[in-house]
């Protein structure tokens, strides 16, 4: 018979739609609306996993996000494999393929279970204590072996094929949790007409109401609960300013009421349309947050409490009422609170035999225990369970009476059962409140931590602040909504909790005297027992934070949702302190695990970062250019002809510039328009150069220092008008230079009438360089006299090229006669193509950044960031000539005047020539003074730029060398693969030192 543990009727599942699925290859069926856990239980499958450390057989403990045991891998297809999912949260779909974890070769027969037998030798802190010696073995032997045995689940092996959506949202009220309190709060808030988001991790809204039997007689606002729920949801759904998000976990609470929500969109679907996002990350900024996150039931700590078939009482009730699944045929309830009696009563109504109710409290005389007695159930109060029987499923429990001191005594009774329901009471879910940095306060009456003073505009409602019971929760939800709406008249005082209904007990159940040999688990997922915690306390750990790290309690992926308070109580008991004195571990986001895909969302692949391209990019692509990344930019590095190597292409491009004409896209250079009456004053204060004497229509090479006197950026600056400068920066430095300029302008020099505008992308810049460059562009340019007399080196002119406006710079970064043609960017490609066509007669050659680097190095021009490293002064770089000597101040001047900054012993820029002309030095290589290198000898410099120069027919290099300029003519040594290569120190200007070519 299929699904033998399914009730004949009832539950919120769709019995008309049967779904086939597999678990460890076994074919099973469930219904739409099931979770994997409920479907497994419907098939009588209780053994679902092996524990992390001892590989003990484990069953399904809970019905929600707190599940520590039922951790599975779900495989949708070869690429869609998700490990470490909680079966209690995995929605069932047709064809679902689930695999158990942490076992080999199979779930039933697991070799790793040997750890369970060895467990007396694996105490808390085992790894810290054992693998101490020999020291070297940790890396080579212990760690790899331990790592192989550890780990939970396997990471997927293929790239994630799914897309993930992301959305920012704002609202007046965010309500987290759609149980009775949350729904009441959302309705009351929505009535005010404000924007409300209501989210809940379950597929259906209703929270605890979903676990009520369908025949429940509970009334809300005079309506049967079920009717109230559907009417409320209908009302909320009809309001345009209300957003309802089911399957959505609020996983993180960040400053200023910024809450992260993870919405699962497709994991419940049988098939997924291509491109349909799997999840959506919501980043919500809420004016007010109402937390109605409910409470989690605590397990009881007693020997053998981890056998399959032992589950939380509330979970058993949920499985019965929400999913129509019986967790057993003959059940025992072990409880420390009244609320759990409902599970026994409901199961009894469904035909499950209740073998006994064991109540660990001295007396069980509340309304629910009385109802149980009236229903004919046997209630043993003042009793406890001292052991369980069974291997892969519980078969019986061993019960003992408690004496006056609360210790087990007398004979032990064995009660046969196939399910044990347990409840130690409920712990309010304060995770999000704590994440928001709200203070948690120990409440003696309730024996738990409750939200205290909030740190944000946060309001808690219902069970998450210790307000239990349906009517009270509804009332509290409305109260929270009123407070969130600014109504302070309503009291936020807590109603008195019904004594004993939800409170229960903390810590381990009393055990017979003597050395316990059977494990009583506190943290199911990390296999931490009460004994481990006691040992930690005996070994001197006092802070719960230390105990946590030592024993790993609460450190599994469930973050100790079921274990933290019990662990705390055990440690407090051991060291004789009150619980609040021992402290509470930090609640960290995420509340439940969130996929990396959801955080990355669209920011992957080609959208990982913006890819910036210049106006001539498409042309360069068509020409087969090889690109390099410069910041976010793609720049053409070289333009290989068919089968040409980079080396050959770069040599060809360099020679073309030297002998004829080359063209280069310099559009990525930063450009800043500095405009205003005080523009020249601003430039004088900022750059080291003097600008007062720069005539309109002229350019100057400018150097910018940081406050500490070191070179930050450089570039050609043109004076376009008396009150207008066209400043260029390096490609990578553009944003930082503009930022620095604005910083000075807005904070230091507010008196200056000058404004800055980035024009980096307004202009496309085409460098035409080489002895033929004038001839190439002459036919395209209008309104500018290109002669050397009219437009000399470092001149700038306005005119037109190809009919469009142009700023024409007579500048050269190559050492040749050259022009940099600035045209509005949308014309860039068109003008580029026109110049290329006009240059054919002169053999014009497009060149890339690599040839540009070689050409400038031949001239000894530095590149900021390559030849400088943030510790180079203008003096070091041989650029002291640029300093405006008569200026009273400029950024970096005071730092530069320190004697140490002017020491001639500092590293200075020099040229290097190798003895063998074809040896190209390694950039970054260290320089030493003698061929006999001694170990530990300090190098005296390093190579910053090194190339093969086709123009010179030999290699060249630039270097920063201590006292370098005085060493010209000396032989130094560069270490190459440990071998000293002799080099001669020279001037860094290797080509045309008189500059006759660029002045041609």
């Amino acid at each position, binding site marked *: 018979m299929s699904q033998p543990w399914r009730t004949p009727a009832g539950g919120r599942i769709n019995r008309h739609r049967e779904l086939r699925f597999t678990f460890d290859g076994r074919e099973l069926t469930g219904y739409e609306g099931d979770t994997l856990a409920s479907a497994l239980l419907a098939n009588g499958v209780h053994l679902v996993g092996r524990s992390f450390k001892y590989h003990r057989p484990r069953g399904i403990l809970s019905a929600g996000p707190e599940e520590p045991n039922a951790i599975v891998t779900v495989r949708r297809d070869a690429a869609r494999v998700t490990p470490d999912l909680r079966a209690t949260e995995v929605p069932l779909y047709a064809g679902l393929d689930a695999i158990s974890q942490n076992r080999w070769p199979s779930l039933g027969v697991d070799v790793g279970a040997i750890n369970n037998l060895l467990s007396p030798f694996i105490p808390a802190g085992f790894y810290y204590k054992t693998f101490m010696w020999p020291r070297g073995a940790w890396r080579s032997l212990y760690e790899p072996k331990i790592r192989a045995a550890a780990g939970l689940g396997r990471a997927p092996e293929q790239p994630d094929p799914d*897309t993930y*959506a*992301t*959305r*920012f*949202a*704002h609202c007046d009220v965010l309500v987290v949790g759609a149980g009775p309190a949350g729904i009441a709060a959302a309705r009351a808030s929505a009535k005010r007409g404000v*924007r409300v988001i209501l989210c809940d991790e379950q597929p259906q809204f209703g929270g605890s109401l979903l676990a009520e039997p369908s025949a429940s007689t509970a009334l809300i606002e005079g309506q049967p609960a079920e009717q109230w729920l559907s009417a409320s949801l209908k009302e909320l759904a009809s309001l345009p300013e209300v957003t309802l998000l089911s399957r959505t976990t609020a996983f993180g609470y960040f400053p200023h009421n910024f809450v992260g929500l993870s919405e699962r969109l497709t994991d419940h679907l049988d098939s997924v*349309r291509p*491109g*349909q*996002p799997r999840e*959506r990350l919501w*980043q919500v*900024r809420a004016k007010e947050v109402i937390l109605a996150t409910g409470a989690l039931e605590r397990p009881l700590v007693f020997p053998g409490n981890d056998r399959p078939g032992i589950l939380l009482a509330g979970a058993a009730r949920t499985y019965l009422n929400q999913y129509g699944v019986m967790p057993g045929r003959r059940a025992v309830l072990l409880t420390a609170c009244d609320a759990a009696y409902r599970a026994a009563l409901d199961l009894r109504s469904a035909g499950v035999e209740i073998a006994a109710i064991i109540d660990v409290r001295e007396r069980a005389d509340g309304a629910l225990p009385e109802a149980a007695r009236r229903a004919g159930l046997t209630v043993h109060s003042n009793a406890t369970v001292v052991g369980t029987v069974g291997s892969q499923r519980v078969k019986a429990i061993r019960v003992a009476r408690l004496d006056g001191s609360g210790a087990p005594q007398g004979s032990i009774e064995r009660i046969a059962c196939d399910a044990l329901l347990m409840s130690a009471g409920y712990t309010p879910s304060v995770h999000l409140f704590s994440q928001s940095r709200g203070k948690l306060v120990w409440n003696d009456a309730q024996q738990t931590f409750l939200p205290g003073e909030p740190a944000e505009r946060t309001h808690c409602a219902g069970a998450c602040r210790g307000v239990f019971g349906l009517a009270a929760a509804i009332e509290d939800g409305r109260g929270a909504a009123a407070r969130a709406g600014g109504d302070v008249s309503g009291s936020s005082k807590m109603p008195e909790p019904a004594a004993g209904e939800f409170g229960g007990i903390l810590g381990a159940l009393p055990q017979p005297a003597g050395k316990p040999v059977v494990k009583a688990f506190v943290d199911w997922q990390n296999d931490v027992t009460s004994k481990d915690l006691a040992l930690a306390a005996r070994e001197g750990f006092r802070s719960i934070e230390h105990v946590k790290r030592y024993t790993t309690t609460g450190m599994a992926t469930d973050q100790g949702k079921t274990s933290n308070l019990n662990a705390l109580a055990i440690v407090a008991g051991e060291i004789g302190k009150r619980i609040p004195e021992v402290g509470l571990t930090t609640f960290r986001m995420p509340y439940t695990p969130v996929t990396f895909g959801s955080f990355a969302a*669209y*920011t992957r692949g*080609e*959208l990982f*970062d*913006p890819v*910036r*391209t*210049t*106006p001539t990019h498409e042309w360069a692509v068509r020409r087969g250019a090889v690109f390099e990344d410069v910041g*976010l*930019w793609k720049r053409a590095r070289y333009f290989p002809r068919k089968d040409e190597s980079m080396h050959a292409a770069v040599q060809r491009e360099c020679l073309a510039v030297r002998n004829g004409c080359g063209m280069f896209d310099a559009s990525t250079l930063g450009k800043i*328009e500095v*405009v*205003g*009456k005080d523009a020249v004053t601003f430039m004088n204060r900022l750059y080291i150069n003097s600008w007062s004497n720069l005539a309109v229509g002229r350019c100057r090479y400018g150097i910018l220092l940081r406050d500490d006197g070191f070179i930050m950026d450089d570039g050609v600056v043109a004076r376009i008008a008396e009150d207008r400068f066209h400043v260029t920066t390096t490609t990578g430095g553009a944003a930082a230079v503009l930022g620095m300029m604005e910083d000075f302008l807005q904070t230091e020099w507010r008196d200056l*009438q000058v*404004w800055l*505008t*980035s*024009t*980096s*992308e*307004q*202009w*496309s810049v085409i460098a035409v360089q080489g002895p033929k460059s004038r001839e190439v562009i002459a*036919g*395209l*340019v*209008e309104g500018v006299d290109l002669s050397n007399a009219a437009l000399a080196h470092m001149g700038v002119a306005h005119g037109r*090229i*190809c*009919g*469009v406006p142009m700023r024409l710079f007579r500048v050269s970064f190559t050492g040749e006669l050259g022009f940099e043609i600035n*045209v*509005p*960017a*949308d*014309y860039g*490609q*068109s*003008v580029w193509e*026109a110049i290329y*066509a*006009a240059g054919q007669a002169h053999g014009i050659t497009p060149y890339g950044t690599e040839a540009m680097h070689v050409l400038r190095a031949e001239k000894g021009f530095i590149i900021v960031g390559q030849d400088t490293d943030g510790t180079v002064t203008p003096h070091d770089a041989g650029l002291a000539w640029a300093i405006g000597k008569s200026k009273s101040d400029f950024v970096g001047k005071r730092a530069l005047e320190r004697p140490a900054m002017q020491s001639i012993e500092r590293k200075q820029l020099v040229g290097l020539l190798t003895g063998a002309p074809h040896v190209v030095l390694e950039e970054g290589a260290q320089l030493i003074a003698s061929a006999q290198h001694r170990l530990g000898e300090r190098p005296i410099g390093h190579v910053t730029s090194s190339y093969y120069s086709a123009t010179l027919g030999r290699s060249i290099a630039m270097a920063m060398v201590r006292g370098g300029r005085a060493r010209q003519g000396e032989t130094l040594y560069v270490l190459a693969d440990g071998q000293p290569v002799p080099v001669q120190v020279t001037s860094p200007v290797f080509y045309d030192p008189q500059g006759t070519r660029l002045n041609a």
Partner: protein
Amino acid sequence: MPNAIATRQGPYVAPSALVRVLPHAARWVLRGDSSVMATAASTLGVPFVERPCQAAAQSDCAALWLGPDERLLIAPADAQSELAARLQTALAGQPHSLVEVSHRQVALEIAGEHAAVLLNSGCPLDLHVSAFPAGMCTRTMFAKTEIVLWRTAEQRFHVEVWRSFAAYLSKYLALAAGELAA
């Protein structure tokens, strides 16, 4: 006399349902005090508005408030040289900075019922019509790029983005628009 006349070509923009590229435009960044802004507004024929994050628009011209002393001026592309000359003349003598940025950026229009939601896939601002009504504009972030966002109607936005970021922005929008179809 040159025979090749250059043609204008904007950056690549990925196509998607809710997004279209707006025609070429003339643009300037104008900096100066409020009398400068008043002069520019009357030259452009748009109302003079000093309210923060408010766009003043009339026919095809607009002045977008980007800061206390900063406006982005937008006009039809064919009026560029004539308006530039008139602005220079009108503003002469007043301390200001007028810098043409026509080609620095490109304008996209995002329109439709889901326009605001689409923008919220990368823009963290509250785009509810009560918080960001028609006529409001601001410089802000969309994912990893800076944009100027201007709501021209309840379901229509004008987005200005630097040209080299247009491909990134439009590809992101195209991908995110796929979600809205879902």
